[in-house]
């Protein structure tokens, strides 16, 4: 049997996940212009809230997911209020913000590990068997189809919001020039708060989907975050469609790389690509 269809399916699913991660990360970066490492741990939080409510406390599945997304969003918003806002109000440098966000990441990840142990867990019930479909000789699970559809819907919604609504226009204006936006009467503090709320909720969605597909552990955030960052940079920072191109490009390179070389080198392949892009095309495939 030919293995190519399966690799293509795996690439598309990985690409869809990276697209979702990059979507939220890109939204934050293009508005506030610093690398928010703390974004990574919000994915972990989202999936652990679902784990707690659904598997430990027996809540309804969809209700748990809703709570997971909302919790991620709110925590992201609170972090902005408590840490990033005061720093930005003081015009702290990007490096200060990067290190502060690293601190946020370390603290929250460790708290999750204390509360839920460092063990690998699954989000799905062991009794339920996933439906598996066959497409062109490759297999795809029900969860993976949901992942793909979610990524398409999220990209469309975010693109529409940015293009058509007043909120979207204000977000773009702040991304272009924060000071001028303030002068023309945009409440930048509030709008950037919304950006963190939306992007952090997207992080929650990404974390829950990864959790449903493969499982969760407290340290999952960093590698997912870095994939999202790499996808953002490859695609083109500050360009919403860049997230799609970067995400899928990364998904394909990674999976075909694994096929040709071997699975263990996955992370190294991703970062080799990042560094190649940073050297030769730092603005990414799509310019802003």
């Amino acid at each position: 049997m030919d293995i190519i269809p399966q690799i293509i399916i795996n690439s598309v699913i990985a690409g869809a996940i990276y697209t979702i991660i990059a979507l939220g990360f890109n939204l934050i970066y293009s508005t506030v212009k610093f690398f928010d490492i703390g974004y990574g741990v919000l994915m972990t939080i989202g999936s652990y809230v679902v784990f707690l409510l659904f598997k430990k406390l027996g809540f309804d599945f969809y209700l748990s997911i809703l709570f997971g997304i909302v919790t991620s969003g709110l925590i992201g918003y609170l972090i902005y209020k408590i840490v990033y806002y005061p720093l930005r109000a003081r015009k702290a440098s990007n490096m200060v913000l990067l290190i502060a966000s690293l601190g946020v990441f370390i603290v929250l990840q460790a708290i999750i590990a204390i509360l839920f142990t460092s063990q690998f867990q699954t989000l799905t019930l062991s009794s339920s068997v996933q439906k598996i479909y066959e497409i062109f000789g490759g297999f795809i699970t029900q969860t993976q189809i949901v992942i793909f559809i979610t990524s398409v819907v999220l990209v469309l919604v975010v693109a529409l919001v940015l293009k058509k609504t007043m909120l979207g226009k204000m977000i773009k204006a702040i991304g272009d020039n924060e000071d001028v936006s303030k002068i023309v009467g945009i409440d930048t503090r509030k709008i950037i708060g919304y950006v963190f709320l939306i992007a952090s909720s997207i992080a929650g969605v990404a974390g829950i989907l990864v959790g449903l597909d493969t499982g969760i552990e407290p340290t999952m955030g960093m590698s997912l975050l870095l994939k999202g960052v790499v996808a953002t940079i490859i695609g083109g920072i500050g360009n919403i469609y860049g997230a799609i191109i970067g995400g899928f490009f990364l998904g394909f390179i990674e999976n075909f790389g694994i096929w040709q070389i071997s699975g263990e080198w996955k992370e190294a392949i991703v970062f080799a690509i990042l560094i190649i892009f940073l050297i030769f095309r730092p603005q990414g495939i799509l310019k802003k």
Partner: protein
Amino acid sequence: MEYIIHILILVGIYGILAISLNLIVGYTGLLSVTHAAFFGIGAYAVGILMTSIGVNFFLAVLLGIIFSCLFALLIGLVMSKFKDDYYALASFGFNIIVFSIFLNWQKLTRGPLGIPGIKRPEIFNFIFSSNLHFLILVLVALLLIYFISHFIVNSSFGRVLKAIREDENTIQVFGYRTLYYKLAIFVIGAGMAAVAGGLFASYITFIDPSSFVLMESIFILSIIILGGLANNKGALIGAIFLIILPEALRFVGMPSDIAAQMRQVIYGVILILLMLYRPKGLLGEYKL
């Protein structure tokens, strides 16, 4: 007593790492988060050379330094293209690539199995077998590194480094080829980290890739941010504090796995608070 000696040895090793990273981050202003890679290269060089060929420890450390320097030259050349937060991001990438090599080049490094049975240093038929003797060796190395670093930053070379940190364009106008200076200090710092790696491998007698992950680089960075950038006494104080902290937590009666996570919570919180209220650390002379 044995226990206190053990702690002091660790403080010494991390002191070397902190001082060497301080040259790069504190004095030159290059936010490098890849120090654990050079620490690891030193450790693996000593581990492999001593166990498979039976090279003397001191010769092995010397070769480890050379190897680490060469690698740093290569990485430094690539990284010299980036600035500030992109520099930090690219250094993340290199740490992960080097970690991947430790993990996956199984013929050389035995991958996740690690290298056991690394011997203690031996010179003129004298073996540093007791921990007290080893502590003396570590302290001698620490003092040596401290004074070399002191000498570097107070020389005319060191003044150029600080000028690069403050304003790279201006010092270029005066005719300094800043690229060479940045490369040189990066290579020197990497060589010093390799010394710490060699001592670590020989002290623990066993190394595996998990000691050289990205989190370790972040930990070393936290030490110097806490103690104060561009201040070597601060770097030492930071190392003492962050090494003793988890041990103190164990004394309070916390189980060791939770103590390890608590350490992360505490140094994460320290990073956030420092960024918010005192971005130059305890004794720092440079603000990010």
